[in-house]
């Protein structure tokens, strides 16, 4: 048996190699929680969101935004219970007569978490960075109207805009306006997510450990002055999940205390009935809509678009597919936002109306059933999209007026194609700021329309231009309402539901209701744990 010693030798060698390889992979060092960090009052949250970049200049997605509002503050912030930007790092902002220059006065004595003082240099630095870095996944598109930022003294800063923009205060409250420390952040480069000691802000928390795709650990910021509400807990750990089903099981087991975004409708319903956990629900601002291409047959005919609008099964989708977790929506700006009207409901009725649909098709001399291909995407908007579009297909077909073929494409292909090849297609929208304007301009402006559905209406363009330069809120809202009426008449897009802000928490988490409002922001610092 001369093989034996050799075999043994090999096995030992193999094992040694494995151990060496393991020890060899000493990667990015990360600090554990500070010793004084109290684990008892640390909130354990779960989410299926993902984080692209923590650095504000490099993200434009909800998951990163949720992390950023914990670390950074804005000149104006959307405080709990209000959709109007309120003073935060600035004590106030004012526009000039032409609404092209906004000047803000800064709060004194604010310190970053590393002790650096906050001044106007930091503000200019932060905005300039966003534009200079111009990151592919960055938010710079939101401040494309910003020509330059000037400072006058350490506590005054002015934003010079290319065209009049009455909603600039809202922009200041978005991720594009998060203020970073100019001494730490490079001017032309992002700070890596794992360099947590360099991710300095003035917000309620500091990031103490970040493991991409797995975990973000937050500790209270000792220098936070409580501009947006006092810190009610001793820290926060967000665990990232790739599947909501595992997150649900962990929540039920108590591995995590709460979960925000996102479960499937079935899971939400089940969680609503589970003892020990509470499902909190408030109106949301995320919407879902069907885009109709006005350049491609058959939706290039107004009668066809109107017939679809008459037939749309909003209530069935809301109850059957989403178990009441979404509300039927009859205009692009969701209910609850100032300026919202039920434009589609007024024009086409609140419930599907097959007779009217038939009449409008007949008047347009259109042969029925109209063959219609509807595109949807399987995972990007959640698994329930499959059910949602099956429901739409079923009810359009059931009227006998349409013959719907469903087609799907993965998001990567789908998002690139949209109106360039698809005739009718599913999309969702989450606003950059909670204002009706953000539900009009990106969809109906000839130049700003990103759906490539070919819609263009001079009247609409004029309304949008007037709205952007309007001086008072009341004026703005009049234009917003006019735009919605035209949008319903032309029907290039059919909005059909608005979501709810759904949070699930175990019984040891309190004050959840404080943060549930139309801002759709999870202000973790307001929550407490017992």
């Amino acid at each position, binding site marked *: 048996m001369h093989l034996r010693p050799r075999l043994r030798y090999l096995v030992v060698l193999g094992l040694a190699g494995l151990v060496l390889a393991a020890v060899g992979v000493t990667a990015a060092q990360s600090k554990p929680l500070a010793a004084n960090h109290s684990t008892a009052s640390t909130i354990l949250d779960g989410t299926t969101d993902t984080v692209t970049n923590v650095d504000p200049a490099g993200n434009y997605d909800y998951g990163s935004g949720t992390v950023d509002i914990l670390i950074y503050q804005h000149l104006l912030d959307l405080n709990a219970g209000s959709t109007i930007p309120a003073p935060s790092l600035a004590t106030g902002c004012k526009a000039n007569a032409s609404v092209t220059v906004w000047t803000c006065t800064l709060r004194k004595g604010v310190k970053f978490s590393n002790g650096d003082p906050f001044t106007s240099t930091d503000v200019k630095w932060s905005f300039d960075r966003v534009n200079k870095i111009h990151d592919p996944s960055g938010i710079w598109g939101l401040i494309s109207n910003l020509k330059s930022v000037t400072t006058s003294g350490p506590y005054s800063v002015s934003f010079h805009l290319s065209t009049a923009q009455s909603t600039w205060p809202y922009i200041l409250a978005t991720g594009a306006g998060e203020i970073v420390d100019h001494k730490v952040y490079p001017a032309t480069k992002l700070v890596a997510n794992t360099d947590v000691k360099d991710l300095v802000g003035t917000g309620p928390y500091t990031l103490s450990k970040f493991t991409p795709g797995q975990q973000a650990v937050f500790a209270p910021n000792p220098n936070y002055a409580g501009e947006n509400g006092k810190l009610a807990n001793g820290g926060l750990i967000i665990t990232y999940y790739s*599947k909501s*089903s595992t997150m*649900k099981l962990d929540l039920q087991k108590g591995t995590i205390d709460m979960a925000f975004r996102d479960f499937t409708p079935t*899971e939400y319903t*089940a969680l609503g009935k589970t003892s020990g956990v509470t499902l909190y629900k408030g109106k949301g601002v995320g919407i879902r809509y069907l885009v109709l291409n006005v350049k491609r047959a058959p939706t290039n005919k107004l009668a066809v678009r109107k017939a679809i609008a008459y037939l749309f099964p909003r209530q069935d989708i809301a109850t059957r597919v989403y178990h009441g977790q979404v509300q039927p929506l009859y205009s692009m700006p969701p209910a609850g936002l100032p300026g919202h009207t039920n434009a589609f409901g007024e024009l086409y009725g609140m419930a599907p109306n097959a007779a009217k649909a038939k009449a409008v098709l007949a008047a347009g001399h259109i042969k029925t059933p109209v063959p219609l291909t509807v595109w949807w995407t399987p995972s990007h908007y959640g*698994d329930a999209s499959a059910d949602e579009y099956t429901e739409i297909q079923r009810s359009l077909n059931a009227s006998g007026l349409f013959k719907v073929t*469903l*087609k*799907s494409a993965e998001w990567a292909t789908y998002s690139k194609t949209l109106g360039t090849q698809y005739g009718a297609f599913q999309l969702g929208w989450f606003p950059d700021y909670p204002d009706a304007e953000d539900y009009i301009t990106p969809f109906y402006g000839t130049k700003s329309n990103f759906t490539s559905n070919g819609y263009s209406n001079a009247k609409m363009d004029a309304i949008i231009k007037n709205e952007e330069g309007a001086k008072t809120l009341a004026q703005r809202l009049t234009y917003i309402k006019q735009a919605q009426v035209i949008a319903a008449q032309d029907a290039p897009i059919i909005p059909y539901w608005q979501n709810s802000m759904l949070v699930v928490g175990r019984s040891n988490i309190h004050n959840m209701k404080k943060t549930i409002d139309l801002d759709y922001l999870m202000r973790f610092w307001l929550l407490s744990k017992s």
Partner: protein
Amino acid sequence: MATAAVRLQRRTVGIRRALAPIAEARGMARTMLWTGVGMTLVFVLLAIFAPLLSPYGFDQYTSGGHRFAQLAHPSHAHLFGTTVQSTDVLSRIVWGAQTELEVVGLALAFGLVVGVPLGLIAGYFGGPFDRGTVLFMDAMFAFPPLLLAIVIAFLLGGSVNSGVLVAAIAITITYIPQYFRVVRNHVISVREEPYVEAARALGAKPFTILRRYVFFNVVQNVPVIATLNAADAVLTLTALGFLGYGVQPTQGAEWGYDVSRAVSDAASGIWWTGLFPGLAIVLLVTGLTLLGEGLNETINPVLRRRSIRQVDFAAPSMDAGAELLEA
């Protein structure tokens, strides 16, 4: 004097020789073989007669103007319950059998059509073509099969509309190197056999030799690999479905996709949407594996148990058969 009759006779002898072990199979091999045949047959019948056997269509949600309940418990009307889309679980399983077998059948056919001839040619002629193909196939082999299938399915998903075709191609690509490898290695060992040498000496053309002498010898192995690969292909297809690639839900019923949708149900105490499709996968794969293993055991002389051990000149080293199981 090689008349058609003689040729035919020679061919039937070849087939009979290949089939002989099956008739002679005994003991466990026999049990496995026939259990496998039985189980596979059940699914084949389900697939063929789906329109007759299935209570409803795979995407049917109403009957007689009555809408099915969502996530309903198993009952008389729905033996296995209903899904979140109000479709009948049993019907989806029956129609799913059709999808699975369609994809697997296509995948095997593609794999054989591409892999076997390549292996024959590369093995018989050798030279740079052989070396190049071997290198290429080895490189393909270095990819974890599922990974390769996912990437291919993802790729094709954008341009090919039939999910069945996408899945079949994705699966095929992972198996071609296997067929190629087995066939080529086998051909190399057969190439030097005396009877092939003899044929060559008599001036037979290479393709005649390949067709008449080598092919039949080599092809004996193929059913074993094919059945075992079929089992593996079902697993790959369901894995693709589980991850959301391949057959899309609007195109047909697919068990893996159904299980993935059922994961969220299961955590909420709804067991019937996941358990039944899951079991269907297990049963079909078990059936195919038993069939393949039984075949392997009856054909592979190392494992074979027969009353008389006959000397078989034509059979080259059958290790290839055992090796492919290991690979």
